[in-house]
């Protein structure tokens, strides 16, 4: 057998083997979170490379080594699920490098990190002043996780005591011109609804590259022809504008009328509408 045919056969066999092994090990292996997974990932890769090109050796030896390494990783993963102390031993624990805004030199020395390396890691997180950090941990994988001091964290609506509506994830209902039934079902819409919405936009199904439904049941589409302008949904901002106009109308009526009874009626309703507007604004302004 010529050696190049051997290489082709070996390549496909090992591709299949590696594929199934990573399928069994799952996403955890890919993310290489722990030391063990990191090591086994590299080793499995080099064994495969060696076994494919090392033609003088038996292919089965390489396969056995890969299977052993994968099963060992799997076993460790299962044991780590069961026992916390085993987990700490195998996967390692994070080392606290900064606490209460102070660098812990002892721990830094223990991990053999210099202050330059620490600041480089912090810079990768867009932190340039050590004084801004409240707490930082060196993860087992060698990355750093830092918690900024409260005053240095980005402002959130919660800080401003703003009320924001909760939002569900948008569902992609059309992809490449075909309807995705499962997404359509989880967004709670029917094919008939989708057909009506597309007709409203003057589009046919095969024109649509991608279409998403947001949590308000509005459809956003992107079409193949980028020269065509598709209107973006503006129903809610328009509704808010109409509400404001109606509220203003009622106030005008209340000023214009001379009839005391209807004056109070208009005033009461203008106030009601104002309350409604305040309530709806977070939901209607997009």
């Amino acid at each position, binding site marked *: 057998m010529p050696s190049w045919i051997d290489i082709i056969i070996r390549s496909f066999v090992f591709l299949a083997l590696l594929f199934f092994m990573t399928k069994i090990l799952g996403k955890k292996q890919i993310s290489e979170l722990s030391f063990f997974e990191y090591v086994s990932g590299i080793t499995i890769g080099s064994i495969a490379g060696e076994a494919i090109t090392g033609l003088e050796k038996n292919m089965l030896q390489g396969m056995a080594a890969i299977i052993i390494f994968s099963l060992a990783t799997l076993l460790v993963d299962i044991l780590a699920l069961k026992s916390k102390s085993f987990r700490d031993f195998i996967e390692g624990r994070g080392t606290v490098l900064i606490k209460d805004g102070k660098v812990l030199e002892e721990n830094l020395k223990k991990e053999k990190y210099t202050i330059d390396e620490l600041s480089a890691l912090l810079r990768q997180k867009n932190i340039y002043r050590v004084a801004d950090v409240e707490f930082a941990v060196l993860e087992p994988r060698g990355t750093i996780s830092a918690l900024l001091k409260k005053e240095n964290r980005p402002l959130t609506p919660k800080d401003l005591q703003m009320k924001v*509506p*909760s*939002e*569900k994830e948008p569902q992609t209902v059309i992809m490449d011109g075909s309807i995705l039934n499962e997404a359509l079902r989880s*967004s*709670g819409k029917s094919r008939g609804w989708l057909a009506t919405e597309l007709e409203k936009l003057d589009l046919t199904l095969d024109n649509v590259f991608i279409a998403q439904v947001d*949590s*308000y*049941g*509005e459809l956003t589409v992107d079409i193949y022809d980028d020269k065509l302008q598709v209107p973006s949904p503006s*129903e*809610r901002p328009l*509704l808010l504008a*109409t*509400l404001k*106009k*109606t509220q203003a*109308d*009622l106030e005008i*009526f209340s000023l*214009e*009328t001379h009839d005391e009874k*209807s004056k109070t*009626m*208009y005033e*009461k*309703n203008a106030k*009601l*509408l104002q*309350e*409604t507007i305040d*309530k*709806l604004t977070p*939901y209607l302004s997009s």
Partner: protein
Amino acid sequence: MTIATSVKQCLANLKGIEAQLSSLALNSNDKGAQEVFHDTMLTIASVKKDLQTRVLELERLEPQYKG
């Protein structure tokens, strides 16, 4: 524009708002949003009712603007 026509126009706007809120309440996926849309729809309905009575009164007072 007479008062009667502008009140009627306002009434028509309110009807539109009510319909849109009801459709938003039906189309939203989020429970909280659904509730807010539904509640405000009911408020709008009560405002609408008040305005409807006023339109009838105006028509009685000024029959020439009836219609």
